């Protein structure tokens, strides 16, 4: 399954660069295509499209979201078990392990090391086996 671009596409190319697997191609001002082999259904194309031209894998219209309103992973270190599933599944490597000495005996815990790189796909929250990650709006101010 993969996302699809509809005839509403104006070829503005807003979706091309943010796509983490370079799945979108097309000439400027022409309708673009998504390579289903490359598409990982992260939804980034839909979140950035200004023309309501992206359908999800289920055929629903993807909604544009302002980047400042994209949800970000918030990690509860008390629940986290340092299993690094979130870091490994992240398609843009925006999470990283942070090592805390002392009581935690040098175990690494994930942190959002590159918040600007985060594409709000939510893969990290989906895979977390102990529900230590929730996708939340950025705090104002």
């Amino acid at each position, binding site marked *: *399954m993969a996302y699809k671009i509809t005839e509403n596409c104006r070829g503005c190319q807003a979706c091309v660069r943010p796509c*983490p*697997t*370079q*799945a979108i191609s097309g000439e400027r001002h022409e309708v673009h295509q998504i*390579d289903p*082999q*490359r598409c*990982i*259904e992260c939804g980034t194309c839909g979140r950035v499209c200004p023309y309501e031209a992206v359908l999800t894998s289920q055929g629903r219209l993807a909604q544009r979201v302002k980047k400042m309103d994209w949800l970000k992973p918030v990690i509860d270190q008390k629940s986290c*078990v*340092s*299993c*690094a*599933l979130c870091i*490994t*599944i*992240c*398609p*843009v*490597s925006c999470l990283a392990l942070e*090592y805390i000495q002392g009581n935690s*005996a*040098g*175990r*690494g815990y994930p942190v959002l090391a590159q918040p600007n790189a985060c594409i709000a796909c939510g*893969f990290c929250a*989906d*895979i*977390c*086996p*102990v*529900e230590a990650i929730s996708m939340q709006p950025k705090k104002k101010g």
Partner: protein
Amino acid sequence: MGCGVPQAIDRLLMSRALQYTKLIRKQDNMSGFIGKVLWVDLDNHLFTEEMIPEKIYQDYLSGMGLAAHLLYEHIPPGADPLGPENVLGFVSGLLTGTPSLFSGRWMAVAKSPLTGTWGEANCGGYFSLAIKKCGYDGIFFTGSSPKPVYLSVEPGGPILLDAEDLWGSDTLTTEKLLRERHGSQRQPGVVCIGPAGERRSLIAGISHDFGRMAARSGLGAVMGSKNLKAVVLTGAKPIPVADSQAMKALSRKPAKLTRFQIPLSSRMMAFAGKFLRNPWFKFRWDGILFTGVLRKWGTVGLNQTSIEWGDAPIKNWAGTRKNFSLDQSKQITPQAISALEQNKYHCLACPLGCGATIRGEGDNQTHHRPEYETTLAFTGLVLNQDYQLVVEINDMLNRAGMDSISAGGTVAAAIEWYQDGLLTDADTGGLALNWGDGEAILALVKAMIAREGIGDLLADGSKRAAQRLKIEDRKAGIAAGGSELAFHDSRLDPGFGLHAGVEPAPGRHTSGAFIYYTLFRLWTRLKDLPKPPLITNKKRQFLPSAETIHQAVTISKFTNFYNALGICFFGIYLGIDRLPLFEWTDAATGWSRTPEEYLQIGHRIQTLRQLFNIKQGVAPKDIKVSWRALGIPPQNSGPNQGNQVDYPAMRRMYWDQIGWDPESGYPTHETLIELGLEGRVAGWEEKYGL
């Protein structure tokens, strides 16, 4: 850092030369597993995606089961393990990449050049999910490339790239370079061989994440024989799961239990060994005690416990704890080693984190801390007391890509041969091999890696070296089927000796032991299995009994099951009443099966692996376990004094109970029909009587 211009040109040229075939579209109803494997033909640089029908997953799951299904069909009888007809596979687990715990193991599989049997090497790290993120459950290599190459799989597809510049580099340098080259957007999963694999040392392994090793069965040599230096995976696909929320709910309990803090100090661990050694009885241990030790100190937490208990063989299995006293082992106490640790290391999906990194002495390099097996191989087994030497050798072997269990067992055998006059100064080039001589041990390991002088003889393991030196079997290295045994004494737990010989991949310590039945608590979930009494007479386990062997057979089936899921066996120490493997599998796939049905899948995989060996011309009865490991003759002192494993009787009973002929070890016709394997042996009647 992106690719340089030469690499980009090379990539373009090679991609044009490649043909890329897609057989069938992905089926979208797959859950937990992907439903597709990648075949790489190294002879012709061709790629083929093969869709795997759901029926195969229902019958074999993924991981080890999928590998058994494919390797059995694709490796021709009598294949040269180092020839192009051998197939090298990398498989993920069915639960890998789902919201489950302990599900990050991957396996390398091929016909083993070391044993001539089914070969497998199991490893943690992060590569397992890297395979699935590329949209495959496994990647399989056939043929042999005319020049060194490495495979890169990116979202756009697979490509073989020139590896001439990497050939000769150690594993750490290779991985660092490949990560820089392919990690511009996300960290790739990398496996590679070092010089040992390139030189086709039969004890070479495959390295991942800067020194985690898929070490056993000599599969690094298979990779080297194919001129395949590395595999680099940068996929990004998430893994489909039938019921993610159910999986998460199931993960809560084991996550909580792994936080258990064991109330033992480092000094008490040596005392624990004495406590276990002295009484005439043994306890029904709760494995959560072991997970507590693993979380606190890692596998090395058991160093002194094992020596004092009689689990760790000393002086090439001929000594006892008196040859390696508490004073001599003081550098490998849990406290001494943890003082050198930098950080804990968790494999993918692991809440336990039994690994660690340490800083080497005199350099700025960070190493993986030597695990229990490596530590005991280069301390008690060879009577070395210097832990820094262990760290140094561990790093050398990791860089070279050589199995530390087989290397340690071979070094110990060489020292004994030298002491007994079977190996002379003329053979060693003047290198005197004495017990506990760190400099000589280091020199020997270096020579093995470089395949120079005596090292060339030893680089293929102790069995080949003994054959070339015409050393009789009784004095050969301590091994099963040619694979050096890991350092758990079958004269303490005869299950280690039994499983080392009857398993299709001989010489593996993780395949089974009697203690695993206790630790895994299988009776809590599987019908008709006996709950062991709280205490039993230690000597009773040496008497072959139907009950004990039934437990061993169950462990074999269960091991194949969890290896198909990609589960770490340390996690199962929690017990299967606390680690919901059956329920996770149901939730991931959307199936609804009983534990007994899953165990039958394990039985099917085990039997297919046995058929693999028979197809390759290996008679199961020809797989020998070293007499010394079985207590022939028995030791006359020490914790295991007088203990002898009645291996022939136990093997006979094991074969009978698992449904294989008790005389030959060939699966019976009834078993093949019960497991739906009769079609696999069409035309075998005349040859094997099946």
